[in-house]
């Protein structure tokens, strides 16, 4: 008995140390110069917390070892094989796994003993958050990898959304079930299934362009689920680490929502369609197409160029050829910058990762606020597969659904090239007046091929 107490004290001391390491680790992860060390520090924290827990376990050692080895294998293979363009769906999947782990922990606690009122409450909350995070992340994964194409308004989506709304009163009932003397395993299993369905209904109606917000929110929820599991198990390191994840995901969610000038509630529960009264604009003017050869001639004479990438660059896998163009321009004496909008792409920082993979130095990347005031000094702005984030309606048309959203004001540059596959509108479904501006030239076709042609012109 005495020995047992000593072990618990020792474990808790180590948990405190690893909590501190987690805190320092995540702090360092927020700065370029210290990020690598921060990640390593946090992995040391994880290793020490896990090792000290292993001293005293109830689960059979074969189960533990086989599960950890299998998990390590699967995790490492995914992490080392994943393409940088597929990072958003991988993060979504991992968010879901985190939620699932907490969901299973709470489930197991429920089967453990007849829980007291407070424990029961924590079990149900953990199951709910974990379950929603899991299935919601699976939908996010499906949408990001384009395996799920169900949109808002379809029958299946509506049914799933109904489950989501049903799940909220169900959670309240389950939380106070012992007090209401509801005591049935059958009802508990029903609740498990309902939370998973509710998660599907939570994310299904949300469109692909809003995924940066959803993925950040699910990231936050996976941490909150772990923190609640920590409350349930009376474990402080789970609480601290889970809360840190919850906070970091929340910050990213807020940054993303701000970058769209929308509230989180509007993104999750309303969407663009109902936010717009979409009056179709009559005056659109003429689109002026240009060939890659002509684009080359203009770029060759430019003294400063701003590249603005969007999701289209990821789809076309054009990041390497973009970097090549940037280098050729620099050799030619042109100043090159990359304007990155916070919600360009499908997750926070998506464009930054792609350009980093292509070896673009990160000090060349600039944010909208840095570049907008001096936009008129740029000779050419090259928009690669971005649409809504450069739509001047956001600043010029008070009736537009995206009015007020901070954009990269490329229309103020001397010349704008827009690389695009067709004239289709962006995610928000709003026509883009940029395409019809006097100083805009449209370069239609696959972004990778178009830039490839410009690059080969440069080399000749």
């Amino acid at each position, binding site marked *: 008995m005495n020995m047992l107490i000593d072990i618990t004290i020792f474990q808790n001391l180590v948990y405190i140390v690893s909590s501190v390491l*987690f805190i320092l*680790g*995540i702090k360092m992860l*927020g700065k*370029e110069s210290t990020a*690598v060390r921060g*990640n390593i520090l*946090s*992995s040391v924290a*994880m290793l020490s*917390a*896990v090792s000290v*827990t292993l001293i005293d*376990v*109830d*689960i059979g050692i074969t*189960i533990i070892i086989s*599960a950890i080895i*299998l*998990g390590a294998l*699967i*995790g*490492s293979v*995914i992490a080392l094989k*994943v393409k940088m363009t597929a*990072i958003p769906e991988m*993060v979504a999947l*991992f968010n879901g*796994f*985190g939620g699932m*782990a907490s969901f299973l*922990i709470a489930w197991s606690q429920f*089967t*453990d003993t007849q829980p007291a009122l407070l424990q029961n409450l924590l079990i149900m909350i953990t199951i709910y958050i974990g379950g929603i995070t899991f299935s919601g992340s699976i939908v996010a994964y499906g949408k990001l990898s384009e395996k799920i194409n169900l949109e808002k308004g379809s029958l299946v989506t509506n049914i799933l959304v109904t489950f989501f709304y049903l799940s909220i009163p169900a959670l309240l009932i389950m939380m106070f079930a012992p007090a209401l003397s509801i005591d049935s395993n059958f009802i508990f299993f029903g609740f498990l299934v309902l939370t998973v369905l509710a998660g599907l209904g939570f994310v299904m109606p949300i469109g692909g362009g809003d995924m940066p917000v959803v993925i950040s929110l699910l*990231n936050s929820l996976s941490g909150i*689920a*772990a923190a609640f599991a*920590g*409350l349930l198990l009376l*474990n*402080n*390191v*789970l*609480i601290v680490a*889970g*809360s*840190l*994840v919850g906070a970091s995901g*929340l*910050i990213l969610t807020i*940054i993303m929502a701000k970058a769209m000038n929308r509230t989180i509630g509007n993104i999750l529960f309303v969407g663009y369609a109902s936010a717009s009264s979409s009056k179709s604009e009559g005056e659109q003017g003429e689109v002026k197409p240009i060939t890659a050869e002509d684009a080359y001639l203009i770029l060759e004479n430019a003294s400063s160029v701003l590249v603005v990438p969007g999701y289209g660059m990821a789809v076309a896998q054009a990041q390497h050829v973009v970097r090549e163009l940037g280098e050729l321009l620099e050799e030619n004496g042109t100043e090159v910058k990359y304007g990155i909008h*916070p919600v360009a792409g499908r997750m*926070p*920082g*998506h464009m*930054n990762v792609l350009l*980093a993979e292509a*070896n673009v*130095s*990160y000090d060349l990347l600039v944010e909208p606020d840095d570049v907008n005031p001096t936009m008129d000094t740029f000779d050419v702005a090259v928009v690669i597969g971005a649409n809504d984030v450069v739509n001047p309606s956001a600043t010029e048309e008070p009736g537009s659904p995206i009015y007020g959203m901070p954009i990269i004001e490329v229309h103020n540059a001397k010349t704008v090239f827009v690389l695009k596959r067709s004239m289709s509108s962006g995610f928000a479904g709003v026509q883009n007046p940029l395409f019809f501006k006097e100083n805009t030239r449209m370069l239609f076709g696959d972004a990778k091929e178009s830039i490839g042609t410009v690059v080969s012109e440069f080399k000749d």
Partner: protein
Amino acid sequence: MEVYILLGFVLLLSIFLGLELISKVPSTLHTPLMSGANAISGIALVGALMLSAEGQIQNVLAFFAILFASINVFGGYLVTNRMLSMFKKKS
């Protein structure tokens, strides 16, 4: 009861601490921060290891809880490291 209030306090303070720590993260690091946080949420592994294993159901639940959390831990740290090693500043 008291212990729950105490730990609830820890939870709230940790969230505020996290918000303070990460509030000014540059957008270059948004993705690595998220995948790094992802790895940290694998702390559920500690919780999974603490589960009891009486009957068959509990053993199965424990196995999968450990499995999912370990995928998160290993996958999360590795991919974050891989991403961060690509961020370079040309001198």
